[in-house]
């Protein structure tokens, strides 16, 4: 059997993780359109770096690129805002819902309780939101999350702990209604 080309290996190993890449980008940017841009840029970078990829875990590798791309993207936006302090929280909240209709799958009808969980996670600070998304939505191990975010495993654990407790506090009124 002939050796597959780089393009073929990329297609087999990396392309199938598009849903993960988009999902992580979507929860980092909190905006469907921006998420698409970040995911696309991440794929171009991944393709460029792919010859150097020696690992076995293509999904975690790709997600670390998605995360880095997101942070570069934030940085660029901040510079574009020239002088005005870029506030990730404000920026995303004000533009967040305008593009959601582009993606029919994002307009799933959610129950009121699901909507509240959605809002609670959106409102979580970035450093907690990213580990929660990687753990609860992408089901990655602490070791994988530590590698993606670039923090020790102990920090992954404590951020998950604090993140979940903040969510619990945000969702507490809802749980009492039940």
């Amino acid at each position, binding site marked *: 059997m002939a050796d597959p080309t780089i393009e073929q290996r990329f297609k087999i190993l990396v392309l199938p993780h598009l849903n993960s890449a988009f999902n992580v980008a979507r929860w980092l940017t909190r905006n469907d359109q921006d998420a*698409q841009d970040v995911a696309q840029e991440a794929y171009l970078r991944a393709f460029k770096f792919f010859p150097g990829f020696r690992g076995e875990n293509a999904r975690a590798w790709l997600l670390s690129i998605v995360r880095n791309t997101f942070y570069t993207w934030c940085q660029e936006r901040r510079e574009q805002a020239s002088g005005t302090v870029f506030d990730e929280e404000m920026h995303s909240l004000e533009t967040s819902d305008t593009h959601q209709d582009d993606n029919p799958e994002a307009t799933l009808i959610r129950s009121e309780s699901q909507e509240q*969980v959605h809002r609670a996670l959106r409102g979580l600070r970035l450093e907690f939101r990213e580990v929660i*998304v990687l753990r*609860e939505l992408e089901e990655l191990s602490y070791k994988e999350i530590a590698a993606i975010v670039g923090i020790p495993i102990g920090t992954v654990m404590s951020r998950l702990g604090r993140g979940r407790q903040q969510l619990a506090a945000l969702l507490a009124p809802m749980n009492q209604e039940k």
Partner: protein
Amino acid sequence: MDHELVLELLPGYFDQELGLSEALEFERHLEGCEQCRHVYAQHREVSAQLRQAVLRVNAPQALAQRIEAALPSLPATRETLGERFRRWLGSGSLSWAPVGATLASVVALSVSMSLYLAVPSPDQRLTQQLVDDHIRSLQSDHLFDVVSTDKHTVKPWFNGKLDFAPPVVDLAQQGYPLVGGRLDFVNQRPVAVMVYRYKLHPINLYVWPGNEAGAKPQVLEQRGYHLAHWNAAGMNYWAITDAGAGELDAFIRDLLAQLAA
């Protein structure tokens, strides 16, 4: 283990990331500590809510196309193939005569698309075709034609689309929820595909009538995917996943047990 340390390790215990001895010590403390049990219950509740809230959205089809178009030297033949298939499946009127022509070109295309043409044997070609099909099902958002976790929805969906009734079993209890079904064209014939999930890994189960293997599943690995092939009650079965060899074994064991039940 003191209370502070237990609180610190609590997420790790919840996520099953602690070692065995740590976990045992942790449990000893948890039993006698009201506060820790409360925090643990919070973790469980929040985690369950997150998982129920449909927070994960699949990438839009347009994004997959944009990315493929932007990547150098990745031919887009697969997309057109997928689209053609979708159009055929989505057209509603499943009259077979015009479909024949489409299928012929699909077969021609998929054979010409086989990537490693070192004169493969029919078996190798089938394996490659299945791996290609599995990957394609993940890439182009074409995992299902019918989305349902209910076997009583999935099974009747195949009626009239195939000349056989594929066995559809529910394996949610065993940790492999059924998530949907689809019709594919493999080995020059239409086949039923049941899609299961193990955690985040899709498992495609292909079924068509025939007697081309033994009853004992043969497992092989190709391009990082594990495939298994066996025969039961006059049907050929192929299962394929990226979940791992052990996981595939366990899936087949549970599937066979359920089919026999």
